[in-house]
C-alpha cells in the first residue's frame, strides 16, 4: 500500500499543528461556532447527539495492521472501546472529547492516518472496489489512481469551500462493488481500442434527498489527463453549483438544471485551458504510485488446496462460511476473505477494540499485514492462502467474527441512526437487529443474495435508495416510521428503489420484510436473485402482500 515520504509526513504534521491551534482558539473564544464549523468538519469532527463524532479517513479502504492497531488504541483510550465502519470505507468514533481530538490526530499521523476532509463541503475520501488488485477479472488496479486523486484533493486550495460535499469513486474491476454510479464523479477504468488505459467519466450521481444515477460526460479520458479533467469539473461546480439551498447544492442538481450536454461542454471548455499543462500526469508518477500496490510476495501454489477440500468436506459450518465469505483470487492457491461485521446482536459495521487488535493480528498472520474496509461496512483480508482458510475461520470464531452472511439479507448497510446521529429522524440499529432476529440462518441462505440498506433519515448515509430492499426512517408527527423501497441496486446495473407504499411502524418491520421475502420466494423462477425477480414482476405483487386491497390508501397504523 501507499507509504508516506517526507512531504506527506510534513503535510500531516502541519495539519495537526494547524488544527491544534484552531481548536485552542475556538476553546478560547477567538473563533465563533460558525467560523470553527467548517474547520472541524474538514477534520472529520461532528458535534453529535451525545458527544462529538470523529470520522477518520481510510483512503480507498486500505489499512495496514499497524494502522488497525492504532485505531484499536484510539477506541480504547479516547472512545468507549469501539468504532463504526462507514460507507466511505472510513471509520468513525462516537465518543471522543473535542479537546482531545488534536491528540488523536497526532496519534494517527504516526501511522500515516488522518481525518482530513472526511466531512464538510469539500472533496471526501475517494473510494474503490475492495477487491482492487486481487480480483481475477479486473481491467486494472484502481488504487494507484485513487492515491493520485487523494493527493490532488487533499488541501486543494480552490475546492475547500464547495457548495456541498463531493464524493469520487474509481472502479477498475468488471463487477462494480464501489457503488460508482451514485457518486458525484464516478470513474470506470477502461481501455480504448488501442489498448490504452483511461477513464469513463460519470458525473452527477448521488443519494441523499434526491437520488440520481450519474451521467456519462466522457467515454474515454486518457489516464494522463485525470487531474486536469477533475479540476475542470470541480471548477465548473464550484462556480456554478447552487449555494442558495443546501438541498439543491450537490453537483447532481447543477447537472440536471444545466443539462448533461451543456454541463459537459462547460467542463470541456474549462479543461482546454488547463489540458496538457503541469497537472498532466507524468509516466514517472503513475509508475511511482503503481509501485506501492505491486503484488505481495505470493508463493507458487497449486490452484486447489487439498487441505481446504478436506476441511470443507468435514465441517459444514466452515463450508457454509466458505461458501458465503470467500471469493476467488487472481493467484492460484489464494483466496479473498471478507470478515462480515454484521453478527446479530452487534450494531452493523461496529468493531470493538479487541476485534480490531485481533483482525490486525490475523492480517499479519494470514494476509501480508494489510486489509481493506468495504463500503458495505465489512473487512477484507485480500491475500489468504487456501491452505490456511480453515485455521483462519477457527481463529475468527474466538472473537465473534465468523458471521457467514456476506451478501445475504442480514449483511445490511446501516447508518448509526437516531441512537447517535443528530440528523436522524429515526433509529436504525434496532431495526437492523429486529430483522436479523426474524430470519434463521437456513432461511437467509435459502433467500440468497439480497442487499438490505437502512438509513435513519433522508441524507441516506445507509444507501437505502440502492438496496434491493431499502428502509428509510421518517418522522411523522414526532413518531418514528419506516418507508420501504424495493428494487434498488448499487451494481453495474445501478437502480434506485421504488417506494412500496405508506410507511410502517418499527414493530411492523420484521413482518414487512418477511412478507416481501415470501413474495420473492413464491415468484422466483430458476436461480433468480431477488432483484431479478423484482425487475420481472414489478411492485404490485409486493404491494398486494403488504397492504392487501387497502393498497396505497392505508394510513399507517399507530405503534
Amino acid at each position: 500500500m501507499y507509504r508516506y515520504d517526507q512531504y506527506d509526513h510534513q503535510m500531516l504534521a502541519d495539519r495537526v499543528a494547524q488544527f491544534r491551534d484552531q481548536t485552542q482558539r475556538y476553546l478560547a473564544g477567538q473563533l465563533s461556532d460558525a467560523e470553527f464549523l467548517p474547520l472541524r468538519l474538514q477534520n472529520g469532527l461532528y458535534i453529535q447527539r451525545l458527544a462529538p463524532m470523529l470520522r477518520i479517513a481510510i483512503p480507498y479502504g486500505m489499512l495496514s495492521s499497524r494502522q488497525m492497531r492504532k485505531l484499536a488504541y484510539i477506541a480504547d483510550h479516547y472512545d468507549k472501546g469501539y468504532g463504526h465502519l462507514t460507507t466511505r470505507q472510513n471509520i468513525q468514533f462516537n465518543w471522543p472529547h473535542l479537546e482531545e481530538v488534536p491528540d488523536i490526530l497526532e496519534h494517527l499521523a504516526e501511522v500515516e492516518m488522518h481525518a482530513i476532509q472526511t466531512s464538510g463541503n469539500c472533496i471526501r475520501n475517494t473510494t474503490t472496489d475492495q477487491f482492487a488488485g486481487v480480483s481475477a477479472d479486473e481491467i486494472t488496479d484502481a488504487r494507484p489512481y485513487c492515491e493520485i486523486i487523494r493527493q490532488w484533493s487533499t488541501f486543494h486550495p480552490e475546492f475547500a469551500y464547495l457548495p456541498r460535499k463531493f464524493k469520487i469513486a474509481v472502479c477498475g474491476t468488471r463487477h462494480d462493488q464501489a457503488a460508482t454510479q451514485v457518486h458525484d464523479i464516478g470513474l470506470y477504468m477502461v481501455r480504448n481500442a488501442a489498448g490504452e488505459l483511461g477513464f469513463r467519466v460519470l458525473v452527477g450521481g448521488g443519494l441523499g434527498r434526491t437520488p440520481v444515477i450519474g451521467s456519462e460526460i466522457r467515454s474515454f479520458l486518457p489516464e494522463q489527463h485525470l487531474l486536469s479533467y477533475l479540476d475542470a469539473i470541480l471548477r465548473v461546480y464550484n462556480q456554478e453549483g447552487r449555494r442558495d439551498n443546501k438541498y439543491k447544492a450537490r453537483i447532481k442538481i447543477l447537472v440536471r438544471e444545466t443539462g448533461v450536454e451543456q454541463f459537459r461542454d462547460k467542463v470541456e471548455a474549462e479543461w482546454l485551458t488547463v489540458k496538457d499543462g503541469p497537472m498532466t500526469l507524468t509516466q514517472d508518477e503513475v509508475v511511482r504510485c503503481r509501485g506501492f500496490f505491486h503484488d505481495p510476495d505470493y508463493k507458487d501454489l497449486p490452484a486447489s488446496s487439498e487441505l481446504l477440500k478436506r476441511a470443507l468436506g468435514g465441517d459444514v459450518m466452515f463450508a457454509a462460511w466458505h461458501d458465503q465469505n470467500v471469493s476467488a483470487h487472481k493467484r492460484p492457491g489464494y483466496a479473498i476473505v471478507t470478515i462480515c461485521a454484521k453478527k446479530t446482536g452487534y450494531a452493523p459495521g461496529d468493531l470493538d477494540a479487541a476485534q480490531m487488535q485481533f483482525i490486525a493480528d490475523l492480517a499479519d498472520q494470514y494476509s501480508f499485514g494489510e486489509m481493506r474496509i468495504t463500503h458495505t461496512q465489512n473487512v477484507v483480508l485480500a491475500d489468504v492462502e487456501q491452505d490456511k482458510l480453515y485455521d483462519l475461520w477457527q481463529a475468527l470464531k474466538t472473537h465473534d467474527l465468523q458471521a457467514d452472511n456476506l451478501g445475504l439479507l442480514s449483511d445490511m448497510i446501516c447508518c448509526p441512526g437516531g441512537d447517535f446521529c443528530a440528523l436522524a429522524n429515526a433509529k436504525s440499529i434496532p431495526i437492523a437487529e429486529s430483522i436479523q432476529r426474524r430470519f434463521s440462518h437456513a432461511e437467509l441462505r435459502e433467500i440468497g443474495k439480497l442487499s438490505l440498506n437502512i438509513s435513519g433519515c433522508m441524507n441516506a448515509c445507509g444507501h437505502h435508495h440502492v438496496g434491493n430492499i431499502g428502509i428509510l426512517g421518517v418522522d411523522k408527527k414526532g413518531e418514528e416510521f419506516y418507508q420501504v423501497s424495493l428494487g434498488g441496486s448499487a451494481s453495474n446495473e445501478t437502480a434506485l428503489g421504488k417506494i412500496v407504499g405508506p410507511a410502517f411502524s418499527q414493530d411492523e418491520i420484521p413482518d414487512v420484510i418477511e412478507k416481501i421475502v415470501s413474495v420473492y420466494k413464491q415468484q422466483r423462477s430458476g436461480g433468480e436473485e431477488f432483484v431479478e425477480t423484482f425487475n420481472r414482476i414489478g411492485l404490485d405483487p409486493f404491494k398486494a402482500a403488504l397492504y392487501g386491497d387497502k393498497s396505497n390508501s392505508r394510513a399507517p397504523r399507530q405503534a
Partner: protein
Amino acid sequence: MPASSEWIIKDQTVVSNSWRILEAEVGVDELADMEQQAIIVPLDFWLAERSTLQARKGQTGVWLDSNEKPGSLIVDSAFDINDIPLIAVNFPVFSDGRGYSTARALRQNLGYKGDLMAVGDVLRDQVFFLKRCGFNILMPRADQDAEIMLTAFADFKTGYQASIDQPEPLFRRR
C-alpha cells in the same frame, strides 16, 4: 458591500491601505471628490463608466462579487486585462468558495499579473488557500489581528497541487 480597512496584507507584509472600496451607487460628484484617491469600483459601474474612470488621476481598480465571473472584465478583444492595476474579489461570507476559482481563473486563464485582493469576510484560517489561489493582497475583516493573520502563511510548507504560487504539482517536484 465589503468595507475598506485601515491596513491590508500585501505580499505577506502588513501595510496601510490606500484603496477605498466603492458601492454601486456612486454619483459623478462623489467621484469627482475622489479624483486623486485610489478606488475600487463594482463591476457594473466599471463596465458602464469606463471612459470616465480612465480619465481619473487616481488609480481605479474593480471588484467582483462572488457570483460575478472574471470573463465579464473582457469588454472587447483589444482590451488588456493587465491595464487594470487591481482586481478585488469579495467574499460575502468566508465559506462562499467561489472567489478561489475567480482568482485562479484570473491568474491562470486570463493571465492577470496585477494586484489581486481578497475583500469581505477574509479570515485567518483561509489565508493560506487564498494565497495559493493567487491573491497577493488581503483586506481582512475588521476584527482580525494582523500578527495572527501573518502566521497563517506558514500553515503548510507545501501543497500537493499545481497552484498559482507553485505551478508545478508536488509529483513533478518530489
